[in-house]
Structure formats: structure tokens, C-alpha cells
């Protein structure tokens, strides 16, 4: 079945989208022949650079004054309304998750968010995705084209260096129409990239078992002492005991450190998805029935506070200090 990638180059995660969708096509999609990508970009963006990252042969470049989903949707509805049987694949970030569903609905097709895999055989198409908060995997048979699917951020290993310098099959610039008239003073505030959780080799993750802001701060101090990056689960971030930028899991950062210590974490699938690619996982939780123990390589059933205090005392060569010395 024909596959079309939809990429948003207006945001700084454009290369990540390209790598994720390339990985998905290679590892999690069967029977899809994707040769075209629709790339939304800011008018001033250099086309050569955009084309270098595209993981398929051809690209339709659509220049926009601003990254607004309502404007993108109008373009996609035109594209999907052609009646052609095709699978549109979107990265499962904020834009992709929204656009896939709204495009599918607008074009009278089928939509699904956070898909983990696609199988196509002739005109038949089935997808898998996690449901029940990550406890179950569901398989769905999709019935009506166009099939608009956003891809789960944790389902595939991103493919590095997949850019093949696509050819620009079409280039157009779109003026903003009345679709954004509902919104005034639209201001995009770039996020602070202080944290490096995504690429950190050693992470200490705090869960609800931290119990308080003080508990979380104590864990953060232990992380600092051990040379680990510090992340948290959703309940901790929702209580504002730590910034949202440190959130690990399906709502936040997907990490893949060599070592992850999960302290006071229960092991809910939504959080675990964010650390499951860790090389080695240590759980510290006083509850022996906490699911995280079964999902870790090594488990300690005890008071996280005492364990981390001692652990931070005996960590002889804090990673950060070593790195600073090397620099």
C-alpha cells in the first residue's frame, strides 16, 4: 500500500521525526511502500537542508508563515481528499497526534493515534497499539482510506543517517487564511533545553514514593552527587514538585540510558515506556508488590531515602565530575 509521511519542519524536532518514521517504516511496518513525504516548513527554511533529512525519495514542500495546525489541516484535507488509497504516517509528537486524527476525520477515512505497528496485505490493513494505559496491546482492522496514523514515540528505534536527499516533487507557499481568526497574539515561546535526559547515560528517576517536594529535592541531590541526570514520573510533575521538562514517560521524555535507578516508582506502563530502553534498571521501592521490581534487572525492597543516601556517599567517581575534568 502507498505510504506518505507527514513531517513538520517548523519545529526543532524535525530531524527526530524523520528518524522515528524511518525507524518505524523499517522495523514496525510491513507492506507499506513510502516514497513521498509532505514537509511543512517555515517560509525562510533552506530547502536543501530540509530535503537531506527526508527518509524517502520525494518531498512535497509546503511553506507556512507559522506552524499552525489549522492551516496544515486545510492542506492535508486537500491531499487526502483525492480518494487515493494511502497510509499517511505522522510522528507521535504534539502536531502529528493532532493532525492524524483531524485529517482522517476531515477526509472521511480512518484515524488512529500512537500506533505501534502496521501490517498491509493488498487492500487489508491492520494496526497494533497499546491500550488500557499500556497494559494491553490491541489489534485493529482498518476499513476506510485514507488511513491517517500517528506513530507511537517508543515503538521503533530511530534510524540514524537515513536522509537520502529527497527530490522536491512540488514546492508551494501557503498564506494564512481565516482559519486562525479565532486566535490572536499567538506567541511561541521556545522551550529551555537545560536537561539532557534523552541522551543521558545515567538517570535517577523519582516516583510518587518520594511523597513530598522535600523528598523529590532529596532525590535530586542524590542524583547530582552520583552524577546522574534527574527525571520524574507524571504524579511528581503534576504536583509541581519538579518541572515538567523532567517528566519521563509517554507524556514526557523517552530515555535510553545505560543505567536507570527508579526510586519510589510504582512501574505504571505510561512511565515505564520512558525507561524501557535502559540498558540496566535498578528499582528501589519499599513495597514488595510494586510492579517496577519485576520490570527491573535488580530490585531493592527498602526505604529509598536510606538506600540513595548511602549510594551517593559511596559513588567514588561522580560521572559529571569526571566529564568536567575531561573537558
Amino acid at each position, binding site marked *: 500500500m502507498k505510504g506518505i509521511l507527514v513531517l513538520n519542519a517548523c519545529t526543532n524536532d524535525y530531524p527526530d521525526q524523520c528518524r522515528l518514521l524511518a525507524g518505524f517504516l523499517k522495523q514496525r511496518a510491513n507492506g507499506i511502500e513510502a516514497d513521498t513525504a509532505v514537509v511543512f516548513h517555515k517560509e525562510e527554511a533552506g530547502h536543501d537542508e530540509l530535503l537531506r533529512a527526508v527518509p524517502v525519495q520525494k518531498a512535497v514542500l509546503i511553506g507556512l508563515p507559522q506552524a499552525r495546525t489549522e492551516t496544515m489541516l486545510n492542506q492535508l484535507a486537500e491531499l487526502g481528499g483525492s480518494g487515493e488509497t494511502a497510509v499517511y504516517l505522522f510522528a507521535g509528537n*504534539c502536531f502529528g497526534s493532532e493532525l492524524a486524527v483531524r485529517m482522517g*476525520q476531515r477526509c472521511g477515512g480512518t484515524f488512529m493515534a500512537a500506533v505501534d505497528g502496521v501490517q498491509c496485505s493488498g487492500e487489508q490493513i491492520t494496526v497494533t497499539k497499546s491500550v488500557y494505559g499500556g497494559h494491553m496491546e490491541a489489534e485493529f482492522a482498518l476499513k476506510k482510506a485514507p488511513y491517517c496514523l500517528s506513530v507511537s514515540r517508543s515503538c521503533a528505534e530511530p534510524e540514524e543517517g537515513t536522509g537520502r536527499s529527497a527530490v522536491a516533487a512540488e514546492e508551494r507557499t501557503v498564506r494564512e487564511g481565516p482559519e486562525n481568526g479565532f486566535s490572536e497574539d499567538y506567541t511561541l515561546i521556545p522551550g529551555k533545553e537545560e536537561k539532557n535526559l534523552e541522551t543521558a547515560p545515567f538517570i535517577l528517576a523519582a516516583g510518587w514514593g518520594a511523597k513530598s517536594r522535600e523528598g523529590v529535592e532529596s532525590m535530586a541531590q542524590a542524583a547530582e552527587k552520583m552524577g546522574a541526570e534527574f527525571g520524574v514520573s507524571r504524579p511528581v510533575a503534576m504536583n509541581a514538585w519538579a518541572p515538567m521538562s523532567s517528566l519521563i514517560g509517554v507524556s514526557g521524555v523517552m530515555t535510553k540510558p545505560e543505567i536507570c535507578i527508579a526510586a519510589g516508582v510504582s512501574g505504571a506502563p505510561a512511565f515505564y515506556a520512558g525507561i524501557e530502553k535502559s540498558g540496566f534498571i535498578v528499582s528501589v521501592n519499599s513495597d514488595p508488590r510494586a510492579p517496577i521490581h519485576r520490570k527491573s534487572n535488580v530490585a531493592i525492597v527498602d526505604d529509598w531515602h536510606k538506600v540513595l543516601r548511602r549510594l551517593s556517599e559511596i559513588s*567514588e567517581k561522580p560521572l559529571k565530575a569526571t566529564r568536567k575534568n575531561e573537558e
Partner: protein
Amino acid sequence: MMKLLLPFSITPDLEALSEEDWALQPDLKVDTSFTPLDWNSFDESALEMSLKLSDNGASGSFCFHRCALTVGGMPSDRFLKTLAALKFDELVRIDPGDADLRFRPEVVARVIADFAQAQAHPDFILMGRQTQVGDNACTPLLTAELLGWPCVTQVTALELADKHRLRVTGAVDGGTAVQTVSAPCVLSIGDAPCTYLRVPTLKDKMAYGKKPITLLRLSDFPGAEALLSGSNAELRSLVPIRKEREGVLIEADTPEEKAEILYRDYLKGRLNRL
């Protein structure tokens, strides 16, 4: 007065289920009837954010009309009564009967859109971005499409801008977007910190908690009921996901000793190799 429609769902506590509890019934359902119920966390944020709009000093004596709507069985009434005690103006439950709506966001969205158009006439619809059981993450987006309204997603903060508009903060890829949004609009609520629903006072429970709940049925929404006969995405199978590792338990007399064993036997070498 600004009219707010707040569709919400309640959810079983899936983390309370043991491994054996995930055994499937013949109709591809998981029995969650014995688990405690709670607010869907994103909807809970939407409900609390609607109340916070009135807390803001800038809103002064400005009046909001809040209509809470849920599609669910009788257990939902307990939650609607809490909202009554929190002085929500209208409480509506739509009983789905035997309909299985776990993976049918288009049906729920049709109900919400029809209710909005025919009865509630809201300026804004505030709802969580996804439910836990279906993990569909579609309902607010479809509601907006059905109504032909714009949709702002991943909303994390709201303020009153003026009597027709809200100042909306939301997460977008690579940052945060802030905008002043005119009615009508659907606002899909994301990870909004400090938005656990407040607890009503005993006095308010006594004074407002018995407000009547309007009960409707799915058959009152023929457009939604018609969708039940077929879906573009048909569920074929459900399989429990198991992601287990060795789980070697470190045993010693004190937590300090356990930490020492962890470091000596498992971490030291790995840390040196980083």
C-alpha cells in the same frame, strides 16, 4: 456570562489490577468492575481549570456557567454529585446502556457535539486529551471537527482575557504557545500541573450536593447511535503486554548494606564504563 461545557469520564484504577486480572473475557473485555473508580486525570484537570477561572482576581464578578457531562453508567453519579457540591450549574449523564464505547471515540464525540449544538450552546468545551482504557486520544479533536470549531491541544493553563475570550497556554513541539482564543473553541487539556480537583466543603455538599442530575440515553442522540452499527477501526484482539526483566532481589539486613551490594556488584563496573 461565559458558558463552559465540560465532558469528563471516570476510569477504573488499572494499576490496582494484578497480573491474573488481565485475563480476557470472551467479548474482548477486561473485568474492571471490582476496581476503584477515579476521575480521568486529564478531565480532572479540565474541571479544576474551569473552577480556577473564577478564582483569578482578574475575573472579578464575571460569571461562568459550567455544565458537566459524562457518558457512563450509574457509578458516575457519585462524581457528578461532587461537581454539584463544587457549584457546577448543570449535571448531565448520558447512559450508554450496553454499548461498548472503549474504542469508539467517534461515538462519544458525536454525543458531545450534538449535546453542545442542541442543548448546551457553550462558548468553550474543555476536556481531557485522552482516556486511560481506550487510549484513543481522539475525542476532543473529533468533537472540534464535528462542530467545525477550532481546537487548541495540550492546554496547560487558562485565564480569562475578556468576557468572550480566554488566554490559553499550551504545549507545542519545541516549546509553549500562548494565545488569546475567541469562542467557540474546543480546548484539549494536557499535562497541567497542580490541577487536582478541589474537595468540596461539607457545607457546600449539604447545600448543593443534591442538585438533580439530568439523565439522558444514547437513543436520545440518533446520530451517535447510528454510528454504533459499524466502525472504521474494528477491534480484532487484545493481548496483555509483559515487559519483565530478571528482578534480582538484593537482600541484606539494612538499606545501607543493600546500597553497598548494589554499588559493588552491579553499578561500579557499569559506571566506570560510561
